[in-house]
């Protein structure tokens, strides 16, 4: 049985290579849905037109798909609601110098 906690833990290994912060702490993950062995991740990115978009989104899919028991993983990349810096965790803010 796949748990959303296990998925979030796996997503903490996916970093924005420019900022050096994982996608969970950056506040990019909007939700995780699990149906049987299928996992769907709803996420956003910090900016439209960022050259690292596909690397991060593909990385999220790969990390989830590598989890035991996951048959298929999809990423739903959305722009609404838009990402804001307020979505970052305290540790991410510290990492950025706040």
């Amino acid at each position, binding site marked *: 049985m796949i748990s959303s906690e296990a998925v979030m833990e796996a997503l903490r*290994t996916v970093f924005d*290579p*420019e900022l050096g912060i994982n996608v969970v702490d950056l506040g990019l993950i909007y939700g995780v849905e699990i149906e049987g062995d299928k996992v769907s991740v709803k996420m956003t990115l910090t900016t439209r037109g960022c050259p690292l978009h*596909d690397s991060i989104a*593909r*990385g999220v899919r790969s*990390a989830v798909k590598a989890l035991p028991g996951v048959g298929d993983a999809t990423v*739903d990349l959305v722009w609404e609601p838009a990402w804001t810096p307020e979505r970052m965790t305290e540790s991410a803010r510290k990492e950025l*110098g706040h």
Partner: protein
Amino acid sequence: MDLNTENAPPLSLPLKYILACLGSFLLLTALLWLHSGDLISYYRNPTVLGLTHLATLGWITMIIMGAAYQLIPVVLQVPIYSENIGHFGFYLQAAGSAGLVYSFFKFDTNSLVFWGALLLVSGYLFGFNIFRTVMSLSRLDTTAWWITAATLYFLLTITWGWIAVLNLRMGFLEFLGQRVIGFHALLGFVGWFTAIIIGVGYKLIPMFALAHTEGEGLSRTIFALLNAGIILSSAAQLLGLPWIFTAAGLLVAVLAIGLFLQDIRHFFEVRRRRKLDLTMKYVIASLVSLALLVLAGWLVWIGLALGLGPIPPRINLAIGFFGIMGWVSLMILGQLYKIVPFLVWYNRYSSKVGLEPVPLLKDMFDETWGHRFFGLFLAGLTLSTAGLASGASVLTSVGLAVLALAAWGSAATIIDVFRK
């Protein structure tokens, strides 16, 4: 899933432009030092013309073209119209730039006309490629407008540059020759370099700094003002209107630049990424150089308005040198510290994200050495500009040696990324 870099061209396209631009930069800084005596003696000599075109074509235009092929598909989310034109255009651009620079050093007017014509073909191919790419967009955003306008100025710059070298050979313009050169220089520096940096800077600086603000700031107003300023001042130059018209045009352009600097200052104030990385330090140094350049330009115009006589050639030279090596080169070097690590990282590690630990972009180069060479570059720039402005040959030579050392060190740090 919205995959932006699906539109990006293969690494080989931007890479050849980047390597050629770095090679030109190494040659430029070494030749500047070797010819420092020529810079002091008289600034409109063949050596200075050769060095200026090595900087503007081999170093600056080459990197703008390479970065355009890399960034336009990503930023505007549309594939480049023709990658083949990009590859073919590179060889024309490289051969044309090398031939033209060599011809300036030798001051061979026949060769200048030939290599200039080759550059004209290369430039128009680039322009065609960019315009067709932008035209495939359903809606032109402000960044697309900036890129389009800057490319138009580029085409005008090279066209009038070629007319100027044709005039050197045939002398058909008579007294108009000087005006054409002024027009060519103004369009190139303000229209091509400055417009493209401001336009793309509006997209990249907030993105790298994590400065999320409502709307596009004053980008549209600045676009309108800068273009009005460029058109007025360059037309005044070409038509030989009284200097007050050029000054009025430049005043409007200065207003646009002032608003741009104000907007960027706002981005820096609200940025969430408080720690400044090496690129951001270069960007700030470049923007400070732009502000100093505008100030110096206005002091010169005030001097003219007060009838204090013509500007000493060495001041003209120092301002031009500072514009190229300060405002433009600092911006390019800073962006190279982003572009090259990204290209290498993307090709080596992008497919491994989420599967195994991969390096961060900042791990792709030695940041400590990058910072050292940045400091050295600023020192060299300050010393050499002061030396040129004061006509002090030893100071100029020492400054240019420091600048060359910093440039070679920075290039080595950037090239080392390929070993990661």
